């Protein structure tokens, strides 16, 4: 299959392009998505191809254009709203938490909000505390939203279509650090199930539950552990709300050990939630306590060595799992 290499950035772009071609009601708006071509060049040339009605540059006005996206969705459109990065998303948090997430319930089922919000997330390239947030857990706290994490090229390419088909608001987290990474994309894949977590690698000795940048890091660690004779199962949670508990339970029931990896800081995180659900559902299946490797409890620092130390690295995953399995 050599020759089919594609960057994560190109995966996102193809997904957006496909959505615009598939449905006249779809349009994208956000800061610098048009004339600039996207802060990360994701939407380069889409303005030229689709015109300013469908690729709308917005002012620096997160609350305004996210709110307008909700209104346009109520009005029958299928907006894709790009928030340049998660770091700016709190400016729109009122719109997301108080409007998008509540309208269906508050109206007794009368008004649904078919909106997709995409945002680039996580550590980039030494961007320091205000531009390196991993806030998936914050949004995953809110009932009424579907929270997706595109930790692989496959999901970056194929999550958008089902997200747009969802009648309710969906947030897709994309990852700045993956943008330039090239991978082969399976050609026959046309959609992903946005209800379900995905087992990325099967194994029998231990399950790693992870999402976002943790997926490729865990797969790398799993490769190395395989050479030491440890067969790791890697589960990409990918739907952070509503959480796919069944896939988690099935994996723990199979491997009897659970390890959770995420970039977000440990306290009140997705890993806290996954760990708690495992305790509730699988306590008697466990051969060892659930362990976690998470982001440090610190605003992300600027220098490279400290930035690297702030989030889990594959070598740490390898060593933690060897310890957990009491591997020599």
């Amino acid at each position, binding site marked *: 299959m050599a020759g089919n290499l594609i960057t994560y950035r190109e995966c996102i772009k193809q997904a957006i392009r496909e959505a615009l071609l598939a449905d006249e009601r779809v349009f994208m708006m956000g800061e610098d998505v048009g004339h600039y071509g996207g802060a990360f060049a994701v939407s380069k040339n889409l303005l030229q191809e689709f015109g300013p009605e469908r690729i709308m540059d917005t002012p620096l006005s997160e609350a305004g254009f996210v*709110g307008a996206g909700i209104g346009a969705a*109520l009005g029958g459109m299928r907006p894709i709203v790009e928030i340049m990065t998660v770091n700016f998303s709190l400016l729109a948090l009122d719109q997301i938490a108080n409007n998008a997430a509540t309208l269906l319930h508050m109206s007794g*089922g009368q008004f649904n909000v078919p909106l997709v919000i995409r945002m680039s997330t996580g550590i980039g390239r030494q961007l320091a505390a205000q531009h390196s947030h991993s806030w998936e857990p914050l949004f995953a706290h809110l009932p009424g939203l579907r929270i997706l994490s595109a930790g692989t090229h496959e999901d970056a390419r194929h999550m958008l279509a089902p997200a747009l088909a969802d009648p*309710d608001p969906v947030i897709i987290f994309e990852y700045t650090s993956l943008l330039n990474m090239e991978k082969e994309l399976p050609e026959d894949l046309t959609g992903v199930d946005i209800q379900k977590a995905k087992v990325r690698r099967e194994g029998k000795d231990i399950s790693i539950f992870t999402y976002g940048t943790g997926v490729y890091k865990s797969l790398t660690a799993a490769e190395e552990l395989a050479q030491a004779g440890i067969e790791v199962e890697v589960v990409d949670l990918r739907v952070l709300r509503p959480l796919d508990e069944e896939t988690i339970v099935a994996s723990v029931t199979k491997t009897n050990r659970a390890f959770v990896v995420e970039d977000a800081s440990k306290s009140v995180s997705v890993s806290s939630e996954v760990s708690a659900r495992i305790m509730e559902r699988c306590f008697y299946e466990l051969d060892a306590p659930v362990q976690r490797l998470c982001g440090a409890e610190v605003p992300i620092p600027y220098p490279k060595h400290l930035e690297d130390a702030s989030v889990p690295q594959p070598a740490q995953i390898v060593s933690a799992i060897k310890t957990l399995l009491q591997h020599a």
Partner: protein
Amino acid sequence: MNLNPDQVKKLLSQMLLIRRFEEKAAEMYTKEKIRGFLHLYIGEEAVAVGVLQALQPDDNVMCTYREHGHALVRGMEPGVIMAEMYGKLEGCSRGRGGSMHLFDAKTKFYGGNAIVAGHLAMAVGLGLADKKLQRNQITCCFFGEGAMAEGAFHEAMNLAALWQVPVLFVCENNLYAMGTALRYTHAQQDLEKKGAAYGIASSSVDGMDLMAVMQAANEAVDSIRQTGQPHFLVCNTYRFRAHSMFDAELYREKKEVEEWKQRDPITSFKELLLQQKMLNDEDYQAIEKQVQQEVEQAVAFAESCSFEPVEELLKYTYSEKAN
């Protein structure tokens, strides 16, 4: 404006329905039939009635949490609104919203929004959808002067002007953001200028004068339909009752309230009609009676309704149907 006797009676009865409905709601609140927040519109009736008469059934309406009056004028059943305030299943939002969150798809009534200024950008979005889908309808968005101090107001104004969306922004300036007076919250108290600052056609009107509000609203709506561009209308009004049922009204003098009550929009309109011989005392008594009956029926309906089974608690957190 030439109005026939039927039209003026309808307008008067709409204002009176708001007044009597809310008096009854306050009573039911003290009887603990209604709980949570209850914000009364009494005193401001001419604004909802005067503005909404300018709209068509296809137009969208978005309101604040002080929206019982707008819902009634828009044609929602009084009983269904009362049932919502009772928290009953037969309420317009299945009891899930209460007083602050009246919703109705049939009349395109998009709430009942309880975060001050939080709905303004959504109104821009509704307008944007209408524009993109080339529907000849407008969105009418009500908010108070308190909302104009929020950043969300300014973002919405900028987007509305930038994208030229058919939205009527109606500021119901009742002089108090909860309990803090306009003079303590706005450096520029000439509110109309804040729409104009964004390049939006703006006007202001005496919100206690129904005919004046109608005139201003008709002009604004005509201009929006003709140009597709937004309009900003300030209606200067006053709420006679407390901000909510929890408010002890320590921030304003009784004398001030009494002075404004001299300008009661219902009394003024009634006097005008009597003077112009478009209404006689008998007509008025008939309207009062009819309205009282509607209110009594609304309460009887709400009382007869049921509560949603607790098993359905989680329903409508996510849609059951596909998109």
